[in-house]
């Protein structure tokens, strides 16, 4: 093989050809562009429709248009006048931040144990937990409800946060993979100096795992924004609602009447989260794969 390799290296003037694209490469490039643009349209058109509906003051969608005749911000003004949406946003931000922070804390502690320590149950513990958690917890809604009402936690943020902070084995597994990939040399020096596990955890591993911690925090926040089953179970008065419960009520009511308002609220709810996600996208790509590559 080395003979063949040498011969080919000698024959091919690669660096020269590299600059200009061959016609085959150009064809591939243009076909790629067309396919990508088709998918970009598939993604953007529904979103454009939502934007269109949100600035359409008439709430009439019988005739199709890409832009309404009398575009105005009347729906947005209405949303802020009502003020209810702002309360839902505030509630959601409070619970999502709390749940996100608690989840990251719980996940980091156990991922550290699973990655760097030995104990009984390490071998199958995480796998068992991941399988157990494929049981969707909302199916046990009767159990949750009766427990919460026993402790007078129905219709309180505390009750909701409590229901949502259960440790996630999948997050632990993701972060464990990340910890596993930290080179041992980084820790060795500390161990030789007699540093205890807490020092290794807080001073060496946690700072290195920041991207993955951000990913888990974001996942948890988006999950909380999207959850409406548990939130719907806990919250009863509209002033306590999270966005999911409030907006579900809005769209499942009178469709024609609320579509414009709903669109405005949906855009204003989704855009900030989408932006955060977009900024963290680099973290996410590297973080997820770092967890998986270790497998």
């Amino acid at each position, binding site marked *: 093989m080395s003979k*063949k390799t040498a011969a080919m290296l000698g024959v091919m003037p690669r660096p020269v050809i590299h600059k200009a694209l061959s016609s085959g490469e150009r064809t591939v490039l243009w076909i*790629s*562009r067309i396919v990508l643009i088709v*998918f*970009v349209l598939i*993604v953007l058109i*529904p979103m454009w*429709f939502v934007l269109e509906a949100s600035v359409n003051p008439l709430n009439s*969608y*019988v005739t*199709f248009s890409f832009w309404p005749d009398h575009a105005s911000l009347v729906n947005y003004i209405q949303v802020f006048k009502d003020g209810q949406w702002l309360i839902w946003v505030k509630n959601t931000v409070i619970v999502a931040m709390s749940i996100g922070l608690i989840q990251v804390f*719980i996940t980091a*502690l156990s991922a*550290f144990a699973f*990655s760097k*320590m*030995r*104990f009984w149950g*390490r*071998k199958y513990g*995480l*796998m068992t937990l*991941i399988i157990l958690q*494929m*049981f*969707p*917890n909302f199916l*046990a*809604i009767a*159990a949750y409800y009766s427990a919460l009402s026993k402790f007078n936690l129905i219709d309180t943020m505390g009750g909701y946060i*409590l229901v949502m902070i*259960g440790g996630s084995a*999948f997050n632990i597994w993701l972060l464990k993979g990340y910890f*596993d990939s930290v080179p*041992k040399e980084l820790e060795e020096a500390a161990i*030789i100096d007699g540093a205890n*596990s807490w020092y290794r955890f807080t001073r060496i591993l946690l700072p290195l795992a920041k991207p993955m911690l951000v990913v888990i925090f974001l996942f948890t926040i988006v999950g909380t*924004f*999207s959850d*409406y*089953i548990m939130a719907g179970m806990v919250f009863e008065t509209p002033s306590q609602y999270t*966005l999911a419960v409030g*907006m*579900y009520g809005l*769209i499942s009511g009178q*469709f024609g009447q609320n579509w414009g308002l*709903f669109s405005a609220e*949906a855009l204003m709810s*989704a855009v900030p*989260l*989408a932006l955060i996600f*977009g900024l963290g*996208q680099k973290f*996410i*790509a590297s973080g*997820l*794969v770092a967890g*998986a590559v*270790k*497998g």
Partner: protein
Amino acid sequence: MIAAVRDLDQPTPSKRVKSGSKSQKTAYLYMTPALITIAVLGIAPILYTVFIAFTDYNQMHFLNYHFVGFKNFVALFNPSNPLSAVFIPTLVWTLTYALVTTGSAYLIGLLLAVLLNNPNLREAVIYRTILIIPWAVPGMITMLVWQGLLNDSYGQINALLHTVGIPNIPWQTSAFWARVSVIMVNVWAGFPYMMTVCLGALQAIPSDIYEAASIDGANWWQKFRLITVREIWAITLPLVIPSFAFNFNNFGGVYLLTGGGPARSDNPFVGQTDILASAAYKMTLDFNRYDLASAISIVLFVIVGVISWLNMRYTGVFKEVDS
């Protein structure tokens, strides 16, 4: 690398012997918050559900429920029982939905990732930023918005189709089109995740493998099939399985979009697009049939658990934990 991690636990043999049980205690201390919350919020409700599945706890027997053995499970699977006439088709639809949605999202994600990974495509970052948006939008908003967009008479999708000469599609009233819409919307929401994962995997493949293959005279297709697909598959499979499990139980992806409808003419419990998870949910909240809902939940759990376990063993995700 794996060996390195193992070594780290015991810097020297003598140290390990000294602190054997103490380090075990420390490990459990770190895991306490997770273990307590998982036990109270995860495992206890499951046990309670298992218990209910073997009783007749429902509207009629709220306070004086009894242990009934496998009666609920027999009702679901016995062909002569009217309930199974609903359960079996719902099970088949749930499997179809989860497989088609996960599979399509994965294939589309892989295709787009391969296209985006072309170094000649200078503007790739623009496409990628736009294509990631459906993943970034909270699922609840996606589903509720699509419910509005796909409204039979007022929805903008039908209005768009009308302008290009396609007659109204009964997204909400026809069982077939409702199912198509459920799969379409969930693929729309799910492919960016797969694309991101595949892109990460593509970039993790060392470029010297390709160079070596080129030198050996491999053509484009051979390189794609033997290197790209194989490497990506190994890296992404552990993430595809949870995605399948997610879709299998994706209550929101169905309930917030169609409400499980359109209704079946022969049965009030379950609609045409209901998956097992939403069927069990409806039986709990709308019909107070906790017994049947729990039995369905357990069937659901067993199916997802077995598939996931087999796949995890097969892909060896947890191999490094063995020692």
